[in-house]
Structures are given as C-alpha cells and as structure tokens.
C-alpha cells in the first residue's frame, strides 16, 4: 500500500508504514516482504540511487491491492453495520456529530 502513491526505497517505506500504520518494520522484515512481493511480480525495482533502490508497484500489484482494499472495505462496512457505527459515520460526513466529536 505504501508504494501506491509512488516509488520508494527501503528507508522511505519504513517511515511511511510507520506513519500510516503505526508499525515499525525492521530491515529484515521489510526485505523479506520486498523479496516475496517482487517474486510474485507485485512490485518491481527501479535503478539504484546512491546504493538505495526504489521500488514501484506493478499493474498486477495495483490490481491485487485494489482487490484487498475492496475486501477490507466490505469487512469494515459489515463491522460498522453490526456495531451500529455506519449511521454515525454518515452523520459525520453530512455535518452532524461525527465519531470523533462524541468523545
């Protein structure tokens, strides 16, 4: 997901994932994931820049990510509906109290 907006190298990926997911991936873990994703053709390397090689998402990687996000969205929608949170979100969007303002 971190590569969806554009190519990144290892350090930029670590920082980005830390920011949006709150998880700090160690270099070993990150390169384990990069190896697998590259083998499956979901990401591809770009020419190295000062010993740092950026990676970008491929077309099939973007398609797989889209599928995964849609699947997650379905799960989130089902969860919101069953917890009665769906209406709160829609109220928030229309200007009435949102989840954040309830606390």
């Amino acid at each position, binding site marked *: 997901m971190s590569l969806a907006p554009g190519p990144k190298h*290892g350090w930029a990926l670590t920082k980005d994932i830390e920011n949006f997911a709150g998880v700090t991936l*160690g*270099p*070993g873990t990150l390169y*384990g994931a990069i*190896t697998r994703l590259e083998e499956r053709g979901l990401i591809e390397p770009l020419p190295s820049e000062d010993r*740092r*090689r950026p990676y970008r998402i491929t077309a099939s990687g973007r398609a797989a990510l889209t599928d995964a996000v849609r699947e997650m969205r379905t799960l989130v929608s089902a969860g919101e509906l069953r917890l009665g949170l769906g209406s709160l979100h829609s109220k928030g969007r229309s200007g009435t109290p949102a989840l954040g303002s309830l606390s």
Partner: protein
Amino acid sequence: MSEQDRFEDLIRWYPATWRERYGEELTTLLHDVHGMAKVPLRERFSLATRGSFERARSSGLVGSGLGNGDRTRAGALLVLWGWALFMVAGSIVQKFSEHWETVTPAIHRSVATGAFAVIQVAGEIGGLLVLAAAVVSIPGLVRLIKAEEWPEIRGPVLRALLAAGVAGAATVAVVAWAHSLPQHHLNDGFFFHGVVFILWGLMLITALGLATAAAVAVARRIHWSPRMLRVLGGLAIVLTILMVGVTTGTIVWWVAMADFAPQFLGTGLLATSNVLPPVLLVAMALMMMGLVVAAIGTVRIVQSNVSRRAVI
C-alpha cells in the same frame, strides 16, 4: 571492522545469491536506520532468522518458490543428513551391543536376535543405497569439474578428504595400539584407553559430518536430469523407511534385553535404572533426530512428486 563490514557481517545469514541481489540495499538501510549506533539484539536476531529462512528457501527446504526438481533434491539431501545421524547412532549401538548373545539365555534370545537382524540388514541395505547414490553422482561430479566449478566445491571436498585421511590414519593407529594392550586393560576399562577411544570416535564423527557436508555441496551444484532426480528421490524414501526399521529394531532389541538380560544394559550410571543406559539413550536421541530430519525430507520429496503430477 569498518561500518560497511559491520553491516555486511550481519547479513551473512542470507544466501550468497540473495546478498548479490539485495545485500547492498539492505546494508544501506541498516546504515540509514542505525547509523553509528549498535544494532539492537532483537534486530540481529531478526536478520539471523530471516536470513536462515531465505537460505532454507533457496535450498528448496521450505516454501514453494523453487521448482519440483530443486525440492526433490533438497528433500533427498535432508534424508542424507538424517542418515549421517543414523550412522553415528548405529555405531554407538553396534559398539554397545558387542557380545550381547553371550549374556542372554538361549531360550529368550529369539526376539532380540530377530530385532538385531533387522537393524543389521536395514543398516547394510541403507549403506548400499547411499553408495549407489554416490556412484550415480560421479558423472555429474566430473561434469561439474569440467565446467570449471571446482573452486565452488573445493573447500568442502578438501576438508572432507583431509578429515577422512586423518580419521583413517587414526583408525589404523588405534587398532594397532589396542591389539598391543594387555587383555586386562581392555576388559577393566583402562581410563587412558577410554579417552583414546572417545577421541577416535569424535574424529570419525567429524569425518562423517564433513563427508556429508561435501556430498551435499556437490549434489546441490550437479545438474540432475528429471529422471535421475526421481531415482534419487525414490532412494531417499526407501532410506527413510529403512531408518524406521533400524529404529524399531533397536527399540525391540532394547526392550527384549531389558526383559531377559537387564544386567547387560549397565549398572545404573547417572542415577538411571539398569535398563536405561545413557549411551543407548544418546543413540536413541540421535536416531530420533535423524528420523525427524529424514521424515521432513521425505515429505518434501512426496510433495514435489504430487505437485509434478498435478502439473502433468
């Protein structure tokens, strides 16, 4: 050690091909993350485990990333390692069981005799199978040397030959020396005699380990035809079945001896009972380890065969 060397040292766990592809990027990232600071133990552990996993994966031991042939080869080589453990365990059992017939009442000897025969026959057939695998590997080894890949395998092969030479010379010397000893030294457990025999045993185990490592290093580089890989996979599966036979035979022999001639099994060293001599416990532990390793290899071979048939 320079800063770059420090990080390169941390990624030694990864296989050479992986390091060629990702090594520079990973060491640069380690530098970006840790700079001059000490790399935390947790990170070192993570690199060690992930590097070992990549190594196992590149050898075809885990994962499905490699082809069926590579997985069959990896499985067969695992079985070979299991067999090496069995040879050590078998030697211990062989030495321990010397003259067991003389102390077992003839009327109670049949079960132990049958079990011991299974151990010996299975062990001999297993040895022949490994020899057959070594013989069919010779043309591949010759091709490997002709293809100028000798530098790749020189280290493990020379180490194995050196260890075999030293162990062989030591064997000749120990046998000659043992024959020159007075009979009461041999029978009464002369201390120095015992130490020499233990050192000799360790030398043989080292030679066996290095020979197995050399065989694995060579076999991993030989280009096998699919048919030859199927043959080697089949031999490895039969070898695993023979190992099950040896283990079962040893257990049955042990139980029979404990039942009918417990005095043969020992005098209760290390607070054990007479029927649980530490030497046999060590041998059985080695057999179990060998069996587990061989079983993992066999599963790998079977999985690659199933996967090959699914493709067909």
